């Protein structure tokens, strides 16, 4: 291939502006939607990876089984003895049992229902690392804070949870008991976690005496050099024996942080993959359109092809010229599609962020951009193959005679 062939292809596209631009438009639309969908998929993957890196891959969960959202079924729980038992096992670094329960939050004469979580004050460093959430304004909870609460990120804004924004020092009611707000946590990125309310363990036990020593889940870390999944297996086996349960009839399960995140990303990837597949249909249609345009183009230029052949163009030259032309249509469509897709995902991302889903943040790695461009070029070139082959097989005499 040389520069003349490319120039010839560009000239031809320029001559048939309307048809070329319509064909380009058709591939553009498909590439736009695929690019936008993929950028979100990659963004979520990145968010999860960052989360895992921040929290550290040495963390494990022990969770009670049950019906409904994890940790919310009060008939299944992990007892204090369970935690104390696991704490003594080899390879366990830090461990904390977490209380978690739905509660009624009242502020400014409005009631809302959100989850209340107990912060274990002497293990806050560990918990902050595990959940990768820090207190961003005010202070953390400390020993003896019985009527103090730290709120999730979303409470700081008006019209998000309550009409008025809550400020440090404001009073709220949790299940009818007054608490002073002393801090806010940083943004986690989903409306569920950003609406949590945190109080101390003592305060939680006062509020719900019948939940004392019944943890919704337990979070722990493995010692340096200990493989977390090995530890998970060991904890599962030993705790099962400790609780005198048979295999397969445990009331709990142990999961490493990585496993938990992997489950989440698998679900996201499946959903995103389905959407990309649906969007891919439009690329197939665009493929057909490019093919159509190329067939038409060849029909129109039959005489031209005849002339080129008469002055010595080889079959392979003709083939290449038309494949390059079709590939260019794809490439230009891909280029514009990537640009438009970038705009679309940015708008989508900011809409998601403003409605509390900051985790839906698009990401545009170079590989995605290059991949989309190469893909669109290949789609174009492939669509151009059959028309180009027909053009290359034309007999010069017949082609010259064609009217």
């Amino acid at each position, binding site marked *: 291939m040389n520069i003349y062939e490319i120039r010839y292809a560009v000239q031809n596209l320029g001559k048939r502006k309307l048809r070329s631009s319509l064909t380009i438009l058709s591939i553009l639309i498909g590439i736009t939607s695929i690019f936008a969908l993929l950028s979100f998929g990659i963004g979520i993957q990145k968010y999860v990876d960052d989360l895992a890196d921040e929290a550290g891959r040495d963390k494990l969960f022990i969770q009670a089984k049950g019906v409904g959202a994890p940790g919310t079924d009060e008939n299944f729980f992990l007892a204090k003895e369970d935690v104390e038992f696991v704490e003594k096992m080899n390879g366990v670094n830090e461990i904390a049992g977490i209380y978690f329960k739905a509660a009624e939050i009242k502020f400014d004469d409005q009631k809302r229902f959100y989850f209340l979580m107990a912060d274990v004050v002497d293990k806050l460093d560990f918990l902050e690392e595990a959940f990768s959430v820090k207190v961003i304004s005010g202070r953390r909870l400390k020993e003896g804070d019985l009527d103090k609460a730290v709120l999730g990120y979303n409470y700081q804004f008006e019209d998000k949870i309550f009409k008025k924004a809550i400020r440090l020092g404001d009073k709220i009611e949790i299940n009818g008991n007054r608490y002073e707000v002393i801090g806010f946590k940083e943004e986690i990125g989903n409306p569920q976690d950003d609406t949590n309310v945190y109080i101390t363990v003592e305060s939680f036990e006062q509020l719900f005496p019948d939940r004392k020593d019944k943890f919704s889940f337990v979070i722990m870390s493995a010692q340096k050099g200990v493989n977390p999944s090995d530890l998970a297996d060991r904890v599962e086996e030993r705790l099962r024996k400790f609780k005198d349960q048979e295999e397969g009839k445990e009331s709990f399960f142990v999961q490493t942080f990585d496993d938990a995140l992997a489950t989440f990303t698998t679900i996201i990837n499946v959903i995103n993959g389905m959407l990309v597949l649906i969007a891919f249909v439009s690329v197939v249609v665009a493929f057909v359109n490019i*093919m159509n345009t190329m067939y038409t183009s060849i029909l129109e230029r039959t005489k031209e092809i005849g002339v080129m052949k008469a002055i010595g163009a080889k079959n392979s030259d003709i083939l290449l010229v038309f494949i390059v032309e079709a590939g260019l249509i794809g490439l230009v469509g891909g280029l514009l599609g990537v640009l438009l897709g970038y705009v679309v995902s940015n708008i989508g991302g900011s809409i998601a962020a403003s409605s509390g889903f900051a985790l839906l943040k698009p990401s545009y790695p170079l590989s995605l951009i290059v991949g989309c461009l190469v893909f669109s070029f290949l789609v174009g070139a492939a669509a151009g193959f059959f028309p180009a082959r027909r053009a290359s097989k034309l007999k010069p005499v017949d082609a010259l005679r064609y009217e």
Partner: protein
Amino acid sequence: MLKDYAAFSLKNLRNRRLRSWLTMIGIFIGIAAVVSLIGLGEGLRLAIMSQFGFLGPDVLGVQASGLTFAGPPGSNVATPLSDDLAGKIRRINGVETAFNRYLESGTLEFNDRQGIGIAASVPEGENRKVLEVMINLKAESGRLLKDGDTRKVVLGNSFKNDDAFGKGIKSGDRVLLNGITFEVVGILEKKGSFILDSIVLLNEGSMTSVLGIDEKKVDVIAVKVKDQDRIAQVKEDIEKLLRKERNVEKGEEDFQVESPQQTLEALSSTLFAVQLFVYIIAAISLAVGGIGIMNTMYTSVLERTKEIGIMKSIGARNSAIFTIFFIESGLLGMIGGIIGVAIGMSVAYGVSIAGRVLLGSDLIRASISPLLALGALSFSFLLGSLFGVLPAYQASKLNPVDSLRSAK
């Protein structure tokens, strides 16, 4: 006259067989995608709705407020309902009866295997009959519960399958609920709802005395009204009563009184939002197909410039030329649409059959209403004609002299 135009258009399409086919392929892929996705989506929505739609229009449910989406009714609430409320609700004018229901998660053991699920209480006395009618309970084998049945359970239909516990449970078998032995006295008829098909029913007495469930914390109060036309009034009266009983002001309720219909509507609108997003992405391919039609038509006009010139010079009006090209593009759209609907329907039904056979899932169903098929057909015709308007207009406005002189 119009018939002649149509015949002429059809002939033109036939003359350019390859191009017409390619253009139509574009349309029918798009239509097939949209039809099959809408069909499957609608089927899924109906399937999900039928999971919850087992209560009649004369029933109200009272629940304490909380994070109710996170689990079965009654879990994750801030202040549970007390057990004296049902009696007070029963005295409200227009209420036929009201009774407490307890829903508890727990373990069920059989054949040395364990499962986790939800046990629901059946009230004793007269209200038993009411509940049986309300959710249309019938025993497929064995019998339903009766008063005085302690340590007896009735199980949902899916327990008779082998997959849950290695072998199916029959009436007469013994199972362990939270470690306590119960006798299975009956298996319910299949309902097609995973909630009812996997339920464990016990008498209220067994629930509180044998399993030790706190009877003061009621999960749901089921209310049956006398006259379903007055259900709104009864609902207001119940709300008034509960505000007084629970000492909360209007607008600050910590409970909800809902008819099953309302719950269904809320669920339905959420599902619809998700569906819509998928449809939009699928519809993009239709737009691409439409652009293909436009392209083909422009090319067609260009090729036939001379022909148009001749037609005009022998007296064809602008409107006639416009109609010819307009019908041609409409035909492209419609034929593409017919094939597309046919393919879309076979894909949707194929997937639903495959889902049933391979996954054994009732959730994958296809529901293609005649309206959907007809809608898709008229839409594809509309799409064709819409994208044909500009090229047809261009053709009709050609100057006869110039077009006769045109190179081809």
